[in-house]
């Protein structure tokens, strides 16, 4: 397995951004435990949350030997999560729409790692891609039902898209040092190309659901993922609630 001292700064930054995205989206999804629209969906969505947290752990393992402390006890400025993953999404239509937008992007990011020069990463990609196939199926089945349903559901999805798309587009803002990650062979596709593939796939689905919308500019201010959303400190504090009781405890 690659260890942090073998990673170039650019490769580390790329993995860190992906790991933090998985951590934050998993944590935000997990907040729906007990609140899903019906029991079966509650279970399905929380399984997806668990999968994403599992991916985060496996990715953090390439960066640090102390996953728990690293995942939970950094300063906000040291995280590299995209704003899309930090947002609360307190309404189900938003949570579901984000799940779809994010997982379409996640698939492409695993794909970018799939021919990585690192064997350990290739094994992780194979496992993650099996899980992600189900995540995308889940999101698409659910959204397509709402899209084919009544006007209220369609209006809610439209308004969730309007709110989330600028954040989602910004997920492709390249991390500092992406060219280094490419020349290292950690990834084989750059964010420009992934962003285009993602945009094509999102637009195709939205057209199919008759939910096409004007394509937004990415939200500005993420600052290569160095800046956090106003909601981030409260999210981080809630994630730290247990570990800070006794940060030396072994769970």
């Amino acid at each position, binding site marked *: 397995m690659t260890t942090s001292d073998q990673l170039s700064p650019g490769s580390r930054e790329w993995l860190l951004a992906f790991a933090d995205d998985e951590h934050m989206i998993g944590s935000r999804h997990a907040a729906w435990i007990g609140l899903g629209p019906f*029991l*079966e*969906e509650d*279970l*399905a969505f929380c399984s997806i949350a668990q999968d994403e947290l599992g991916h985060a752990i496996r990715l953090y393992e390439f960066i640090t030997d102390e996953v728990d402390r690293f995942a939970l006890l950094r300063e906000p400025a040291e995280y590299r999560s995209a704003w899309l993953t930090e947002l609360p999404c307190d309404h189900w239509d938003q949570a579901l729409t984000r799940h779809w937008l994010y997982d379409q992007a996640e698939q492409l990011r695993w794909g970018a790692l799939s021919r990585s020069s690192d064997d350990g990463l290739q094994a992780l990609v194979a496992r993650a891609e099996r899980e992600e196939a*189900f995540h995308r199926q889940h999101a698409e*089945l659910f959204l397509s*039902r709402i899209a084919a*349903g009544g006007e209220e559901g369609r209006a809610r999805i439209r308004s969730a898209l309007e709110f989330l798309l600028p954040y989602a587009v910004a997920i492709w803002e390249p991390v500092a040092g992406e060219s280094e990650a490419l020349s290292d062979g950690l990834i084989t596709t750059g964010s420009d190309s992934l962003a285009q593939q993602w945009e094509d796939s999102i637009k195709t689905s939205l057209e199919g659901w008759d939910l096409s919308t004007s394509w937004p500019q990415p939200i500005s201010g993420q600052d290569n993922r160095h800046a956090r959303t106003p909601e981030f400190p409260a999210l981080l504090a809630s994630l730290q609630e247990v570990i800070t009781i006794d940060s030396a405890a072994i769970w």
Partner: protein
Amino acid sequence: MTMRTYEVFLKKDGKDEFRHVGAVHAPDDEMALPLARESYARRAEGDLMWLVDRQHLLVADPDLLAPNADKPHRHNDGRRVAAKRKNERGQV
């Protein structure tokens, strides 16, 4: 979305038969499969899964079964035969 109810059956690889494990609510067949998977098979409880829309079940009238409730002669557990043989051995 109008919800339907599906009965879920799982089978482990090997000689075990399919067993009923519960029910799921889902809007249609296509969504019922992944939701059943998450509800009943997320810990690898089965290798094969059947779903049956409850509206396709044939449900017997309880009266059809009731006459069989009092037929002890169909419960051949061998005890009467064993008792008889024991009794005969005792007489020898």
